[in-house]
Structures are given as C-alpha cells and as structure tokens.
C-alpha cells in the first residue's frame, strides 16, 4: 500500500515536471501559464465543472481501453466506437422522440450507444479471432470509416428537419442528462463514469471472468493449458471495451452536445490511450489520469493570451508523459547497468 502511494506521488510529480518542461520548451512563461491553467481548471465552479465534463469522456473511453488492452487486444479504435455509439444514439433519438416519453428516450439513447460501440468493436475483434486481421490496423481503419459515416449521417439521414446545417436535430432538455447547476455544464454522466470505473475494477480484479481476461492477456499459453477459451474471452473483452467507448459517445451526446456534427468528437477515443496507459491500465488509477488531463484540457483554453496552441499543447504533454513513463518502467524492470550491447 505504501509502495503504491509512493509510486502515485512519483507519477504526479512526473506529470507536473512534464507539464513545466513542455511550457519551457515552447517558450511560454511558466509561472503565469500554470496560474492560468489552474484558474481555468479549478479556479471557480465553472472551472471545476469544465474539468469534470472534459474528464468524463476521457474516463469512459479510458476504461474501454483498459479492458481491451488487459486482454492484449490493442484496441486503437476508441474514436470509432465513440462515434458509433453516438450515431446509434442519435438514430434512436430520431425515432423515439415524440413517440416515447423523453426520460425513456434518454435511457434508450444511452443503451443504444452501448450497443453501437460494442458492435463496432466486436467487428474488429471478430476479424482478429476468425480471420487473423491485426486489431491495431482494423480498429484504426474502422475509426476513419466511422468518421466518414458520421459526416455523411449529419448531412444525410440524420440531418435536422430544416436541412440547412450539417447537424442532427437538437435534443429537448427533458431528454438530456440531469444538470445540477443551470450555470455550468456539469451533468450526471460524471457520476456514471466514476461508478463504472469502480465496476470495471471489481470486474477485472474480483470476478472469475475478469481474472481469466487478465490471464489471457498476460500469458496465452497458461490460459490455454487451463482450458480457457482465449478467443472467446478476447472477443468479449473487445465487446465490453467498445460498449464503454460507445457509452462515452452517448454520454457526450445526451450530457453536453445535444446534437451531433461532423466534429462531434475532439479525439476523445484517441486520447483515451495515453489516459489508460498513464493510469497503469488500472481502472481506479485511470480516474486520476482522466481528471488530470481533463483539467489540462479545461485549463489550456485559458492560455490563448500567450499562444493559440491550447489543446495541441496537451497532446505533446500526453505523448511525452507516456514515453517517459514506459521508459522509467522498463528501467525498473531491466536496469541498464546489467545490460551488454
């Protein structure tokens, strides 16, 4: 336990160091920049709400990545599954609204997003298990197909009734997730995400199926010797992973946006990978890394006074943090002193 706390402190220290280093590298004034980022992320209730709202899709998609990668299924398709979930939700909204009560429509949209994301990921899982197509490549290709699919849907079958803008019809307030303060965007999706993080933790570390999933990921031979159906477990891991990423799309849709456009996702499914990695592929630690990057995305908007970079700066921080993290971890596992080359 104490070791875990010490490691956590080290990670936090490292993340701050990478942030400061990146600011320095791009010639930004460190003190004022940090102050502005802090102000934008935690300064007042607006900042805190912004951080929570940005961390939510990162956490949900991050959990999706954790489940798949734990089974050694390199799902890079969080982005496509996020969009597939949102698109399925919007399709349900088009038919359910006006027929079913709005609260019921809300639940149906979220359920649909889970199914849509799961199916999109299962396609890649199935191609891997049955046809030997590398998951990394197939999920990346499926991302691009989903992006074009969204672009087509919002100017085609799902376009708003007036058919003027490439957007879906805006949801009525009653079909949106509950908000707590009329002045901020904070919605109940934040709590859905945190509860699911705990649920994924229990699933992976406290259930038999979760244990099998991890065994398949860590050592396939051990899994097979013990009579586990590795292919089925992998397929299930992909489905669950896609379900979480799809739900992230659904929550973003009924929590914040209320309508879809071609630019609906701000790379959430893609950014989930560094979030999951820096959370050591552990569901509870991913809450922390999602919160950290949510805060950076929320706070970096404030940097406009110094630089037009904003979110791209956070991408650099994520990339450097991941590389530093994996390098340090490999160092601990194999100290370079004992190496001969």
């Amino acid at each position, binding site marked *: 336990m104490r070791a875990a706390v010490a490691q956590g402190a080290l990670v936090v220290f490292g993340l701050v160091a990478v942030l400061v280093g990146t600011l320095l590298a791009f010639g930004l004034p460190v003190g004022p920049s940090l102050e502005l980022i802090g102000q934008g992320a935690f300064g007042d209730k607006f900042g805190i709400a912004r951080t929570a709202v940005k961390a939510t899709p990162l956490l949900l998609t991050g959990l999706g990545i954790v489940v798949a990668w734990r089974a050694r299924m390199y799902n890079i398709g969080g982005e496509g599954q996020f969009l597939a979930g949102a698109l399925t939700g919007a399709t349900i909204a088009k038919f359910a609204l006006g027929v079913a009560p709005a609260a019921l429509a809300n639940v149906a949209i979220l359920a649909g997003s889970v199914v849509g994301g799961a199916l999109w990921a299962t396609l890649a899982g199935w191609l891997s298990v049955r046809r030997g197509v590398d998951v990394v*490549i197939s999920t990346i290709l499926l991302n691009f197909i989903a992006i*074009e699919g969204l672009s087509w849907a919002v100017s085609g079958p799902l376009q708003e009734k007036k058919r003027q803008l490439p957007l879906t019809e805006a949801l009525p307030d009653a079909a949106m997730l509950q908000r707590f303060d009329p002045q901020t965007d904070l919605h109940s999706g934040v709590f859905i995400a945190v509860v699911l993080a705990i649920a994924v933790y229990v699933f992976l570390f406290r259930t038999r199926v979760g244990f099998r999933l991890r065994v398949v990921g860590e050592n396939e031979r051990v899994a097979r010797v013990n009579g586990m159906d590795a292919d089925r477990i992998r397929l299930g891991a992909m489905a669950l992973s896609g379900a979480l990423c799809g739900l992230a799309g659904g929550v973003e849709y009924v929590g914040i946006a209320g309508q879809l456009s071609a630019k609906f996702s701000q790379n959430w499914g893609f950014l989930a990978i560094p979030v999951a*990695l820096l959370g050591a592929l552990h569901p509870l630690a991913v809450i922390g890394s999602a919160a950290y990057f949510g805060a950076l995305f929320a706070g970096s908007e404030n940097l406009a006074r110094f*630089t037009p970079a904003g979110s791209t700066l*956070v*991408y650099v921080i994520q*990339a*450097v943090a991941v590389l530093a993290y*994996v390098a340090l971890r490999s160092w601990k596992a*194999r100290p370079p002193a004992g190496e001969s080359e």
Partner: protein
Amino acid sequence: MIDAFRLLQYACPLALAAIGETISQKAGLINIGLEGQMLTAAYVAMVATQDTGSPWAGLLAGVVAGVLIAILTAWFTVRRGIDQVVVGTAVNLGALGLTGTLFRSRFGESGRLLSIPGIPSFGGYAGLDAVTLGMVLSVVLATWLLTRTGWGLAARSVGEYPSAAEAAGFSVFRLRTQAAVIGGAFAGLSGAYLTLGVNQSFAEGMTSGRGFVAIAMVTFGRWKPAWVLAASLLVGYAESLQFALQLQRSDIPYQLFKALPYILALVVLVLAGKGGQAPRALGTAYRRER
C-alpha cells in the same frame, strides 16, 4: 479519370511510406508511429522550403526529421524492448501536438493559406518528377536489398527468429535499428512529398490516416515491395476517384469515396486472412537471454 502521372504523384506518399514500412516490418518492427513521422516531415519540409526557398532543402529536412523520429522510436522499442504499439501511439500523438503547436504559433490559429514552391516536374508532365521516379526505382532497390544482399538476409532472419539470428552472430539491436532508420527515411520523404509534391501547402493533420493505410498496404502486398507498390497505386486510384466522381455523381455521398480507401484496405485484409507470409517475430520485442 486522371492521367497516369497524376496517379503516380497522388499515390506516391502512400507508396513511399509503405515501401519503407515493408523493410522495417521484415526486420520485425511494426511502426504504428508512421503517421506521426510523415506528419512531422510534412511540417518540417514546409518550414524548410519556406525559409530557404528551395524544395530540395525541404525534402532533405523531411528525411532528416523522419530518421530522427525513427532513431527515437528504435531506442524505445529495440533498445529498451518497450511495446511497439504503445510507443507508436505516443509518437503519433506527439507529432499531432508538436506540428499543431508549432504551426499555430507560426501561422496563427487557423493558418493562412500557404503556398510554397514544389518539386519541378520533367518535360511538362505533371506528376513525373525526381521523387516519383525515385519511388519507382526504390521498389527495385528495396527488393534487391531484402532478397539479394547479406544485410537483407540478416534483417529478415531477425524478423523471423531473432534468437537464432543472434546465435548466428548477428546483432538484433543493430539490424532492427538500421531497418527502422531506412523506414524513417522513406516516411520522411513521403511526408515531405505530400507537402512539396501533392499539396504544395501544409495543414494540421494533413496526412489524414495515410500512414495507417500504408501499414495495411504492407500486408496487402504480402511484404513484397513490388506488390506493395501495386497495392498503393490501387488504393491511391480509389482515393483519387472522389475528385473525379464527386462532380459527376452528386447522388453518391462524397463521404463514401473518402471512406473507400479504408474500406478497401479492410476488405483486402479480411480476404487475405491469416497471413502466412508475415514475419514471425513481427511486433514482438527481442530480449537477449542471459
């Protein structure tokens, strides 16, 4: 639809990246960061050309950028044995962030319309230039390198059975790093040509997935440079259809044409099935036994 030289030009970045990726995959390295290498090279080529006024300086700068990222990647994946997918993903994200940040701080939030001198073409045939010709020639060179030289044999053995290759006296570390550097040079040239040959301009995220499609092309071409070129030309042709058909067939959504290369790549991978020709140690780290 479009003439042959134009097609050659259009498919050239994809083909170059895929040929380089073939060499690195033969040595056992799958370079997920290819997209990021291309994007960085595309940006660097634009800046270098703008500052010097010479597209050749831009090409060179692009190649150098590609090689530098390859060395960085190889340090993580070959030297430290860190997962190739993890490192490649970080490289892509870093390249997207770095080029975006530099581009915005140099040219402003949206970036004004940039125009830079391109690679001159031969004899007035647009698309027939030093890079496209070099690309075709490089297919021959890559095939010769992989199948007819001692280095190629050693690199391939490292991609199949690294421990056996090491036992036979080859250095897995050195051969894989060399293969990564060759792949990086191709990726850099590919990104630079995207800026200097195809678009004569730069935009954020302009590689738009070509690096990933290039990885798929290697499987499609069964790890043989000539077939990888053929695959790239086919997909490049499918991609070019969107411009030609968009005007003629407004009843078909243009997004379908934009998605076509990705769909085509996926379908081909499905049909190709479990690739028996894939290097056996592809994507796995080699750790020396002690």
